[in-house]
């Protein structure tokens, strides 16, 4: 049974938590999967570090924490330093080239993409950076269908903003699909 665990890390205000919720909700509502989403609560706010754990599975999910994610996203240098070691061997470590300088070698498929810079260049609005990130994730690993993510986005953003989010998702999908791959994707589970 398909089973994916993800940890998304970054800084408060980057939309990490929102992206996590949208992805998991898409899996549950539009793909008939099970999913759990948890996040670190505390004095974290804009600028503080944030972390969201997601499990998406065809089977029931009991323990909702993720200790070794298949997919780890780090959107700040701080998050990269703190969390890069938890990646499951052979997993995918996705970072943004504007915010993270790759420093250490981990046993993972490290993918560095210019998500933020491309969003700013083509759309000019940082608010859809997190949606571009979701697109990149789906371009790298078809966790859910992009259409499912768009269905969720439509319920969460004003109608005037749907097209912009769609563009951001597409930009991410292309960047993710055209990445330079180091190795093949890890097996499910």
């Amino acid at each position, binding site marked *: 049974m398909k089973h994916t665990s993800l940890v998304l890390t970054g800084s408060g205000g980057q939309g990490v938590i929102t992206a996590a*919720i949208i992805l998991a*909700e898409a899996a549950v509502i539009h793909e008939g999967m099970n999913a*759990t989403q*948890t*996040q670190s*609560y*505390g004095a974290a706010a804009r600028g503080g570090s944030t972390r969201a754990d997601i499990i998406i599975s065809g089977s029931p*999910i*009991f323990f909702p*924490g993720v200790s070794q994610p298949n997919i780890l996203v780090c959107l700040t240098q701080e998050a990269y330093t703190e969390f890069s070691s938890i990646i499951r061997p052979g997993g995918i470590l996705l970072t943004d080239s504007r915010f993270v300088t790759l420093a250490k070698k981990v046993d993972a498929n490290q993918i560095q993409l210019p998500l933020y810079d491309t969003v700013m260049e083509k759309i000019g609005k940082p608010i859809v950076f997190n949606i571009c990130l979701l697109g990149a994730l789906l371009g790298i690993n078809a966790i859910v269908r992009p259409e499912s993510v768009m269905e969720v986005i439509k319920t969460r953003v004003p109608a005037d903003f749907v097209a912009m989010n769609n563009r951001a998702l597409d930009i991410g999908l292309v960047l993710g699909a055209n990445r330079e791959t180091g190795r093949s994707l890890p097996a499910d589970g």
Partner: protein
Amino acid sequence: MTERIEFVQGNEACVEGALYAGLEFFAGYPITPSTEVAELLSERLPQRGGRFIQMEDEIASMCAIIGASLTGRKVMTATSGPGFSLKQEAIGYACMAEIPCVIVNVQRGGPSTGNPTHVSQGDVNQARWGTHGDHAVIALTASNHQDVFAMTVDAFNLAETYRTPVILLFDEVIGHMREKLVVPEKGEIAIVDRLRTSVGKDVDYHPYLPREDGRLPMSDFGGDHRYNVTGLFHDMWGFPSNDPRVVRDLLHHLVDKIETNVGAISRYREHHLEGADYVMISYGSSARSAIHMAEHRRERGERIGVLELQSLWPFPEELVRGKCRGAKGVIVVEMNMGQVMRQVRACVDAPEKVFLANRIDGKLITPADIKAVLRVIQGKGV
């Protein structure tokens, strides 16, 4: 109308359950990690003609729902940690005056303001004995959002059936985690409505005179009948009395109506319990880790199962004794210093075989934490 699939926090599942059960009045004072319950109800309840009031504090919130319940409404409040402490005196009043109400406590670390944003299950005994004096109470809990919904509906039903406060003991992980919830269609789960007296207007009504089946029909306060409500021991009219017989009989009634119905009130789930050598007993978010571990161990052929308690008070002693009989070891998995473990030890045949797997640092107990305890019990070391 078809069933609705949602991806929501546990606190939202609680709100959905309360609305399904017919909640009409909520008074509260928001506090982490229960805040979303009040936040969502402030929007949802007025939309369907109910009333939401943010009170000046937790004491007033508890008193407000008691008053509203007396007038015939289904009522709820939600709180956590210090807020639950503040409500205790009024919870005792609701026990004594037999006023149906639901109190949600999304547990966080304590005592005092404690660890506001982190998980704990440290209020289990407070739910039982937080208010003073002999009394009985009902407390339910849940490990997943479908059960949060179901237990919330049950809480309202039990509150009406037994005319008692019912406490929903959730925890921070369940309250904040998001997962799937299928909101059932109307009518799929039975709803217990207020039992109202058939005594007509201007005819003598005895608010505390039980029917033959022991239940006490209510009359909406401020309506057809004038009667007295008090926290003092009282007679069938509701007037204060210190007549020894009245005092003794009322206390017997308050305790017996719940303690003699443990079987009807008990709610639980079994996970791989058949033929289990090792029985884990757990509840709330801790149970998720216990079940996770049992699932994986069963795949490897190990005989380990979980008794998941969904009602903690009245404590299901007969059930626990029966399920633990013959087990090589019983591990109580919880996030406190052994509050349910002591209950288990008190009722099983072999208390020396009952062990505690706990975590008290604000983090959700993990399957690895439980495995470590199991290794020690099995003599395998750490």
